[in-house]
């Protein structure tokens, strides 16, 4: 079930990418939208840290977003 879902996701993504011409060839003057604040991956570090800290203390998984963070004994 999980593998099927992942395969569907991968195929859909590749099909979408394949349909784009000039993929990855974007000129500086075309990056106005990409430069907008809402297009950054993490615009609010305090928000992200607070939320990831909670998930890390209530679920088994944590990490993947960067290096250099410490642990805690959270229950």
């Amino acid at each position, binding site marked *: 079930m999980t593998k099927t879902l992942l395969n569907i996701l991968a195929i859909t993504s590749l099909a979408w990418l394949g349909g*784009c011409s000039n993929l990855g060839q974007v000129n*500086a003057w075309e990056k106005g939208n990409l430069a907008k604040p809402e297009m950054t991956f993490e615009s609010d570090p305090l928000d992200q840290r607070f939320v990831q800290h*909670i998930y890390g203390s*209530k679920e088994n*998984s944590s990490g993947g977003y960067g*290096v250099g963070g410490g642990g805690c*004994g959270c229950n």
Partner: protein
Amino acid sequence: MVMASAAVAAVATESVLMKKTNTSHFLPASGVLLASLVLPGLAALVAATPLNASAENAPEKSTIAIKYGTYKDSQPGWDRVQVDAPQLYVQAPIAGVWALEGSWVGDSVSGASPRWHTQTTGASRMSDYRNAGDFRVTRFFPRAAVSASVAYSNEHDYTSSAIGLDARWSTEDNNRTWTVGYGSSSDRIDNTYSGGDVVNQRKRTHEFMAGVTQVLTPSDIAQFNLTRSFGEGYYNDPYKTLDTRPNSRNTWIALARWNHHVESFDASVHSSYRYYNDTFGVRSHTLGLEWVQPAGRWTFTPGLRYYSQSAASFYLDPIMDAQGNYDAQAVLMRAVSLNGQNQSTDQRLAAFGAVTLSMKVAYALTPATTIDLKVEAYKQRTSWHLGGSGSPGLDPFDAQFVQIGLTHRF
């Protein structure tokens, strides 16, 4: 010199942009123009990122942000843990090529946590305070940046210190950025202060990360990070009954993120997927989706997160009696008979799924000052486990978290 060149290029680009772009969708601030010349979003690759900044340009302004977070969780008939967490973040540019960042959080934790599964009987009560801070310095070069960070966290029974190093560099057209990073943490666990029997136990972790961020189209940017970590030491939870875990845990984590700008709404869609796998035997999948909708001074961000994990190889399901009730005596007898082997009845090592619904509202009081409120509702259910029912015999688990913040740039 670097900044001067970039500024000249930005001015030249502005006129082009104004001709090519619908002006109602374009932010004329010079910072945005500068950012448009480099690859945006790179900063997300590191734990302590500057607000609204790209990797290869030092921030133009200083930033101070304060936030107050609250967290409360519960299961049917029982309020469990409450956390109040004031937070502070400061970032300052130095001489155009350096950036200093620091943050602090103080968690006040109170409530109770089950000693096994989701049983209320004999729950361990807690009242703790956690002080945590980090400091980070970044040196910017033309199309590259290098950062070093330290972090420290202290509770009455747990102390953690960590360091991090990372570097990122972009291709000449700034459409692709590579990142590598290394982190190390050293933790000490000792609960004799509160009458426990865990004395001076240690845990060390090493993390290695590599990633790439790629501009795909004028409206799409994607990122892929791969993280490998190796941990050794004390992983038991001293507040769970007869909890014995392996003394090492290695993980693989893959993170893919995709931001898409929706021209017709002048909005952005953030999507993400994280795959996690560790030597405890846990595999997890995390899907995230956000819609970021600016509207004048307002920005509305509704979000949805789905998480699913398999159980750890040493997690033990509850034992039920003939009437279908939790049989605490049988659970205890089993634990005693397995004494010396890896075993845990920690709910967080079970197989379950979880959903979070969130809404963030931000309002710009002035061009330099923004206030924000974020409310999230989290629900954990074993029946929401991906691919079928999860671990049996556990109560539903709910949590609410709220954050209110203020950010000022000057």
